[in-house]
């Protein structure tokens, strides 16, 4: 048996706890049943109980499966063991939440019994797997989030992780609830009750389950990769790149075949996916100066294997997003008529108040570089304090506050400074971010030199 799973079972399943869960939950359900005589209400409460236990408590436990080890000083002992990354990953994911699942499955069993009791067993075939896979997905994301924080050298305090994890979950649900229907409904790719994906019509529930399963696989892959990294197994960026391509392909599925789905629109949608992934990659990993120093060292020496292990994930993401931006820019020159069929999306590339596609593509690439520079500049400080949070605030101010103020003041000439591609003057659209990139690069170079001077010279390596 997986030692990590076994240890968690030892810790969580005392005889008292094994007896307590069914007694307490059984008493609650019995009380509701006797007071209301309604199986439907019992089923509903049991279902809510499952969601609360499996999603809220479960994600908390998944995070604490790691946070508790670090707090107790046992994590180094585990890292020194012979447990392989994959065994450690699933041992923590399933083991850390074992008692949660024990309680959650009691709720789910009650819910299923109630549904059968009121003659709706058929609904269980969809709802049960959806709820179980959804909870597993949330827990896997929570654990990967905790591992990501550890990889960034953060102290894993329960409170901060809980707060950030909750924000992450709300964000995920927000994206799932808002982003997906907005695509499907806005472009008429499918109604809410039926979703067409790569020409295949799915029921909304069926498609959600399929999506959950696919994303669960990726979340587990993420947990494995992050765990392997923390166990000092060299990691290369292929998994991240594969995930990026998967996401691009996933969203391509919502485009209907036919003349409306021209190449430029396909690439534009890919760019819409690749750009946020670039920013996610920038913030997901540690950006301390030591990593970059050794990366350049190995690149100079030609020890590519070592360099690849240190390569930040934003590098392939940047290459992907920048490449897509260029392709979109080139394609929009020849597909203007086709693109007008989808006014809402491509207008920003060819519309009256927006510059040409090539200038916008260059501006987008320069803005991505400027933003990266800001993040690195803050991370390369002598004693950086919450540099990523500070960078997010600066970016919000630059894009949102300054951009909004300039637009509100009617100073359209200044807009290219804050919004990629804004304005009709192609030269200004490119020059505005270029100046900012140069300024950030200059500051970054100075900080790099100051930090490098602080390190003593060495002869070897």
């Amino acid at each position: 048996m997986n030692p990590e799973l076994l240890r968690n079972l030892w810790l969580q399943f005392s005889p008292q706890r094994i007896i307590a869960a069914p007694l307490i939950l059984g008493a609650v359900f019995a009380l509701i049943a006797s007071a209301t005589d309604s199986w439907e209400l019992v089923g509903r409460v049991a279902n809510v109980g499952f969601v609360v236990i499996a999603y809220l408590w479960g994600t908390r436990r998944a995070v604490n499966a790691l946070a508790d080890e670090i707090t107790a000083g046992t994590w180094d002992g585990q890292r020194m063991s012979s447990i392989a990354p994959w065994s450690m990953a699933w041992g923590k994911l399933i083991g850390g939440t074992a008692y949660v699942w024990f309680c959650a499955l009691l709720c789910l069993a009650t819910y299923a019994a109630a549904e059968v009791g009121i003659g709706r067993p058929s609904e269980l075939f969809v709802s049960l797997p959806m709820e179980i896979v959804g909870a597993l997905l949330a827990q896997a994301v929570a654990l990967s989030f905790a591992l990501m924080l550890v990889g960034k050298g953060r102290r894993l305090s329960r409170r901060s992780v809980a707060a950030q994890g909750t924000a992450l979950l709300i964000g995920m649900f927000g994206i799932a609830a808002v982003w997906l229907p907005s695509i499907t409904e806005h472009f008429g790719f499918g109604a809410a009750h039926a979703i067409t994906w790569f020409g295949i019509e799915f029921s909304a529930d069926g498609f959600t389950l399929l999506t959950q399963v696919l994303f669960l696989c990726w979340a587990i892959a993420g947990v494995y990769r992050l765990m392997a990294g923390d166990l000092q197994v060299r990691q290369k960026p292929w998994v991240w790149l594969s995930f990026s391509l998967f996401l691009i392909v996933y969203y391509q599925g919502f485009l209907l075949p036919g003349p409306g789905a021209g190449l430029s629109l396909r690439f534009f949608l890919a760019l819409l996916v690749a750009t946020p992934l670039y920013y996610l990659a920038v913030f997901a990993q540690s950006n301390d100066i030591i990593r970059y120093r050794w990366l350049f060292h190995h690149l100079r020496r030609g020890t590519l294997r070592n360099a690849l292990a240190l390569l930040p994930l934003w590098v392939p993401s940047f290459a992907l997003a920048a490449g897509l931006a260029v392709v979109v820019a080139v394609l929009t020159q020849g597909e203007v008529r086709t693109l007008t069929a989808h006014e809402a999306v491509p207008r920003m590339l060819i519309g009256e108040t927006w510059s040409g596609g090539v200038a916008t593509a260059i501006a987008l690439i320069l803005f991505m570089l400027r933003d990266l520079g800001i993040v690195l500049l803050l991370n390369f400080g002598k004693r950086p304090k919450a540099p990523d949070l500070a960078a997010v605030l600066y970016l919000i101010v630059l894009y949102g506050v300054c951009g909004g103020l300039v637009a509100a003041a009617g100073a359209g000439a200044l807009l290219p400074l804050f919004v990629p591609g804004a304005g009709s003057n192609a030269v200004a659209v490119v020059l505005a971010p270029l100046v900012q990139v140069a300024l950030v690069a200059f500051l970054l170079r100075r900080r790099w030199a100051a930090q490098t001077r602080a390190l003593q010279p060495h002869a070897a390596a």
Partner: protein
Amino acid sequence: MINVEHLIFDYPGHRALDDVSFAIAPQTITALVGPNGAGKTTLLRCLVALDRPGAGRVMLEEIDVHEAPREAHKRMAFLPDFFGVYDDLTVRQCLGYRARAHDVPRERRRAAVERAAERLGIADRMKDYAGTLSRGLKQRLAIAQAIIHEPRVALLDEPAAGLDPEARYSLAAVFRELRADGMTLIVSSHILAELEDYSTHLLAIRDGRIVDLRALQQPETGEAAVAMQLRLATADPRIGALLGTIAGVSDVAVDTLLVHFSLAGGVQVQHALLKRLIDEGLPVAEFAPVQSSLQDSYLALMRKQAAS
């Protein structure tokens, strides 16, 4: 056993290990000493592949520990300064878990648990919860957990911190036994007197650089001059003059009953000199090389480093 080659480890704005190279012989106990912030803990963590250095490599026999960390961990043990045990598990469960985590085969697992507990003197506590143990017993449990898979090498960071003198004494005995069983140990500590009890080698680090690595016990066949101390039962004015006539003797200093001098030539010369003194009728009560303490050596070394 362990070969460290050009290890470099940086923290932002600070180089913690600067081109560190050394070799550790098998079945030795090396005392890793140095002032606070010298890089002791960073070095130990790099040696066991918990932290990856920017450059250099660590070879454990034929294994590059940073290329194959899981393979290296099968042969290594590490007790960090801030160690933890699972308070809600019994001692037997803690050890059983670690045996499984280290891939100890099922048929040998029970024996491994019993042996580790026996070695560390906690066999009578197997049913106790780890959280109920005293600090000293927790330390023993943590060491038992670390070595349950019979590693070739054990690295311990400040293992005696917070222990009372009796617990320290018994810990020293444990280390000597582990060495006698064939294990190689590297022990980092600030308590030099404790290290002196069991260490065979001294590895001194300062500002991220190795400043000394040497055996603590001088080879008995050495010909180099050693500091000697002689104590007389009663004062005898002849001692100074007599020692001055003997070949190999130098730096004679007489203080009534106590005489210090240097003697070159090894143990045979020491034997001949003692015989001569006795034959001359001098009331010799003590005659031995002066053992400089680890603390003396360490302080002298650090003073020399600071001066240079």
